[in-house]
């Protein structure tokens, strides 16, 4: 299916802002006032609305907007036995070191009730597929190629293992990671067999590893509660080993990894900043086809970090800031893509926003209207690039 894509295909990173009626349903379901089946019917409509926005904007590869998910990784609590979705407020009542969570909340500029973390409370095993049902529904409603975002094994192993809660089932996060890899690998195979075009593994917490000095601290980096050894080199090796264990030897589907610097606040100053440079060797060692990265803001650093690794992988080039109201001009997007052509072939470059529009259900970063206009600008830029480069 991917062979039919034009040059500079336009796609998304995953999430779409949820409409208020979907959030109402989500809260009812989480509060036990709506059944799973009832929620799915509401979410079906939200998925179709998210799809309509994307198709009307004219993008080439669509997602279901993660409409059924609470956030990009916590949704696994619904799909796995042994995992419970706890709010940070609930977790703070269970653990001894509450002060570290207060620091997390301060950095995140968020209330404890709004942050939910999938927390291992018992041995994990699949209750239902992680995303195959999402894919199957969307497949019935669009002819366009579909991308499916999945949480990466590293963020899952870190976020799901909470000391004092999870260690009864798994003594360490490394023990948990073995089962996480198996779950993700089985899901990747199932999505491949169902005809999915692209699976993106979200590992935003990798920037936290290299940019946060004290990585032993639990951080809010894109929702991850982030248990870590505190040794960046060891963490990056661990992350690479896990992702490669998921993807190795699985052909017939494109895979990628998405790494950003946070998408939880519209205040740029509370998000991480810095060049991808310290992460590029790690990302190049990951057995995935595409690196989906943010390059729309100065916070993200420059594209010359790829100078030592020309044309090695596909690039999902972030060209729109999901957290701003101002719509990027097609000229800006063309310029960014032209810059990328120094290090990538035209056929290797995909255009996408820096991150999702609604990574966390309760904290959307933009409205559907602004998101739609930004996508249209990217589509217009892609047409210009095809005329001038193609």
């Amino acid at each position, binding site marked *: 299916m991917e062979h039919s894509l034009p040059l500079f295909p336009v796609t998304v990173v995953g999430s779409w802002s949820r409409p*208020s009626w979907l*959030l109402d349903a989500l*809260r009812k379901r989480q509060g036990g006032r709506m059944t799973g089946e009832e929620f799915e019917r509401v979410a079906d409509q939200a998925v179709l609305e998210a799809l309509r926005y994307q198709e009307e904007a004219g993008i080439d590869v669509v997602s279901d907007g993660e409409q059924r998910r609470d956030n990009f990784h916590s949704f696994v609590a619904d799909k796995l036995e042994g995992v419970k979705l706890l709010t940070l*407020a609930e977790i703070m009542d269970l653990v001894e070191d509450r002060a570290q969570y207060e620091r997390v*909340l*301060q950095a995140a*500029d*968020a*209330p*404890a*009730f*709004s942050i939910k973390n999938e927390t291992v409370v018992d041995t994990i095993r699949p209750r239902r597929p992680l995303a195959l049902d999402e894919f199957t529904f969307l497949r019935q409603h669009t002819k366009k190629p579909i991308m499916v975002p999945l949480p990466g094994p590293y963020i899952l192993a870190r976020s799901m293992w909470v000391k004092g809660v999870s260690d009864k089932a798994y003594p360490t996060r490394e023990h948990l990671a073995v089962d996480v890899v198996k779950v993700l690998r089985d899901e990747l195979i199932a999505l491949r067999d169902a005809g999915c075009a692209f699976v993106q593994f979200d590992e935003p917490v990798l920037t936290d590893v290299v940019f946060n000095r004290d990585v032993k601290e639990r951080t809010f980096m894109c929702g991850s509660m982030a248990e870590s050894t505190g040794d960046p080199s060891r963490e990056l090796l661990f992350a690479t080993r896990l992702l490669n264990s998921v993807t190795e030897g699985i052909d017939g589907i494109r895979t990628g990894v998405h790494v950003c610097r946070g998408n939880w606040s519209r205040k740029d100053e509370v998000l991480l900043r810095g060049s991808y440079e310290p992460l590029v060797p790690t990302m190049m060692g990951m057995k995935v086809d595409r690196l989906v990265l943010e390059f729309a803001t100065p916070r993200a650093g420059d594209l010359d970090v790829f100078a030592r690794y020309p044309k090695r992988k596909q690039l999902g080039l972030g060209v729109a800031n999901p957290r701003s109201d101002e719509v990027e001009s097609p000229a800006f997007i063309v310029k960014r893509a032209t810059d990328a052509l120094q290090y990538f072939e035209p056929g290797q470059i995909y255009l996408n926003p820096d991150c999702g529009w609604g990574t966390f259900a*309760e*904290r*959307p970063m933009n409205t559907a209207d602004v998101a739609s206009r930004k996508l249209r600008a990217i589509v217009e830029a892609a047409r210009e690039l095809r005329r001038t480069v193609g």
Partner: protein
Amino acid sequence: MRNGIDVDALQAALNAVGAQPESAAARKRVRVRWLDRLKFRAYVRNHQFEVDEPTHLAGDNANPTSMEYVLGALGTCLATGFVFNATQRGIAIGNLEVSLESTQQNYLVFLGLATAGHPGFDQVTAKLYVQADADPAVLRELWDHTLRTSPVGNSLSRAVTLTPEIDILP
């Protein structure tokens, strides 16, 4: 019932309190007893709570400090006021948190390490996070009203710069 509060009973209680002129002064009494080292117990009506200092200041870090209680008291007072006023106005609250941060003008004065200035709060930020079934403009006005009528807020803000913020979540 609204926000878990019996609205009729609340109104009856307000009518009763309002009929007693001496209620305006709302006299409070607290007794504080030294336990050991820098640990203290405060007795308030039939309740009690303990106060300590952190280990780096020779305490046992068994409980919050007095200033942390003051900050906590401001937060709970503001939260109480918001829920109280919302309930009276028929607004259902889904979730609510208040996050506070303070600085002291010169804490070293208390420790005997400096003489300039005073060791009290000079700046407090109080941010309300709320999910509620109401128009955002109504919630902002309610937050303003809560700040204007907060007993602890007024006790502090007449000497301290109190900066309120609000974040209304969907």
